[in-house]
């Protein structure tokens, strides 16, 4: 974990509370097990043996929104699914983040028609967009790490403003 080098001889680490909280948030981020379409298969690949997302503290996919803090919208969101997605998002406890995985979730992708939301950002606020149709598992992992970067940069002041 890299803590050992910082421990010195005294067994004490000094850090800011913000840094500590953000560090623990990134290293145990539980994504919601929520596949929509083709991208979900790549999300499963990212979880499976070859790519193994658990290297980043994400081996635990939760089926319940109440227990998860990262929503990976993996696939296209239809007009019928939109309200359901929004409700799931509302059920997730704060703080929460959203990754739009794939072109469909980001901007509608190849489906520019009556049935699909042209981007899931019309339904829920999105933090990170991952491009590709489907994105490779590496790309998804990169997207997750980008969320980590974002989380690490957050401050208490921002939280306070956000949840006022």
């Amino acid at each position, binding site marked *: 974990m890299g803590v050992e080098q910082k421990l010195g001889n005294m067994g004490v680490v000094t850090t800011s509370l913000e840094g500590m909280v953000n560090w623990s948030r990134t290293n145990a981020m539980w994504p919601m097990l929520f596949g929509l379409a083709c991208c979900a298969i790549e999300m499963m690949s990212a979880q499976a043996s070859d790519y193994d997302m658990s290297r980043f503290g994400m081996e635990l996919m939760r089926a319940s929104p109440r227990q998860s803090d990262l929503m990976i919208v993996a696939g296209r969101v239809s*007009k*019928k699914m939109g309200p359901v997605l929004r409700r799931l998002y509302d059920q997730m406890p704060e703080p929460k983040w959203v990754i739009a995985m794939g072109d469909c979730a980001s901007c509608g992708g190849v489906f*520019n028609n009556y049935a699909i939301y042209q981007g899931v950002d019309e339904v829920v606020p999105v933090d990170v967009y991952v491009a590709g149709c489907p994105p490779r598992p590496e790309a998804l992992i990169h997207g997750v790490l980008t969320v980590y970067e974002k989380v690490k940069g957050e401050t208490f002041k921002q939280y306070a403003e956000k949840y006022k």
Partner: protein
Amino acid sequence: MDKRLEPIVKDIQEKFSATFDEFRDEVHVMVAPEQIVDVLTLLRDEHKFELLSALTASDYFPQVAPRFHVIYQLSSLEKNITLQIRVPVNGSSPKVPTVTRVYKVANWRERELFDMFGIECEGHPDPRRILMPEDTEGHPLRKDFPLGYEEPQFTFNFDEIDLRKPYAKE
């Protein structure tokens, strides 16, 4: 035409005064809407067409009579042949009798027919929409239903579209 299909087509022609045409070894038989249940029953019971492979329609929009063709694609496993039955339907209040009593698979397929084309199946046991939300207006696969194309966002028009894009709130 396939040798095995000849007697069957002839049989339908004699009993229901149907017409047929052929394209790339496929036979399309035209029958009137009132006759479809009898035709399918005959085909299933006497000519061993056990499987209703597909049930769909095609919209010839500006044309009114007939505006739609309802298509029944049948397969016979025993004889290994296929046959297509087409039923012309008029544009104003399109209706066909349901064939759920002949093939159970028609239940969902006819719900889809109603959902996508607005063709009602008279006597259907469960006439609800199947794919679209219940409160949708119109029937998407009709030719006069718009595709719903939205202008894609590129670098040159990014700001303009960004302004009117309905972003979700927290």
